[in-house]
């Protein structure tokens, strides 16, 4: 499995697939290119989705939360932060009042980018087989 991300536009559609060379099964590295995408599209941005390893319920790490806060502070706007595992997804939003006070909501909807995000994350299924990636 390799973590992956996608920047989402104001309609919730995929705007930019974030698949850096240095991504791993546990992290997406800091990326000036990703920040440039956020900044250049700040007027019509709604959020960012990324994948976590494994199956079942997932949630943001401390690194995730501090990145959410930093990006929102830089852009001057709040975003939707989606995190998916191999078979479930949560939506994380700032709740306040503190800078790092984010809460997560389980979601059952399947946005049109979710299938591709899971494919490019190359999850193995529960039997340990690789899922085929089709673009």
């Amino acid at each position, binding site marked *: 499995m390799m*973590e992956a*991300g996608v920047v989402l536009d104001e309609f919730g559609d995929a705007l930019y697939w974030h698949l850096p060379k240095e991504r*791993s099964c*546990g*992290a*997406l*590295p*800091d*990326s*000036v290119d*990703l*920040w440039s995408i*956020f*900044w250049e599209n*700040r007027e019509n941005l709604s959020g960012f989705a*990324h994948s*976590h390893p494994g199956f079942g319920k997932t949630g943001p*790490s401390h*690194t*995730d939360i*501090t*990145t959410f*806060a*930093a*990006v929102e*502070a*830089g*852009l*001057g*706007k709040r975003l939707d932060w989606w995190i998916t595992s191999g078979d479930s997804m949560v939506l994380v939003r700032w709740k306040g009042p503190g*800078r790092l006070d984010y809460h997560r909501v389980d979601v059952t909807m399947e946005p049109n980018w979710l299938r591709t995000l899971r494919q490019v994350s190359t999850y193995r299924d529960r039997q340990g087989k690789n899922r085929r990636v089709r673009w």
Partner: protein
Amino acid sequence: MVDMVINQDEARVNVTWNGQNGDLPDPVYFESTDGDLRAMVQEAVQNGDVPGIAADPNANFTDFVVDRFRATGEEDWNKIHIRPKTPFGR
């Protein structure tokens, strides 16, 4: 764009905050530490000392990163960019 004289061991500092972007009015030592740069920029934004960025007493640059760019043939001076970090994961 701010007119300033920038020596070879100095850099122009560009800051992004709250949907705004601007340069510090004075150059800084290029080899300043990341911590010193973040503190300097945070104080400047809090005090409204960055042209193009409205004063924000609550500005917090704890989770921002420092990108350094040496002068090249196309760029006449060193540049430092202070921008939000973007890693995800562990």
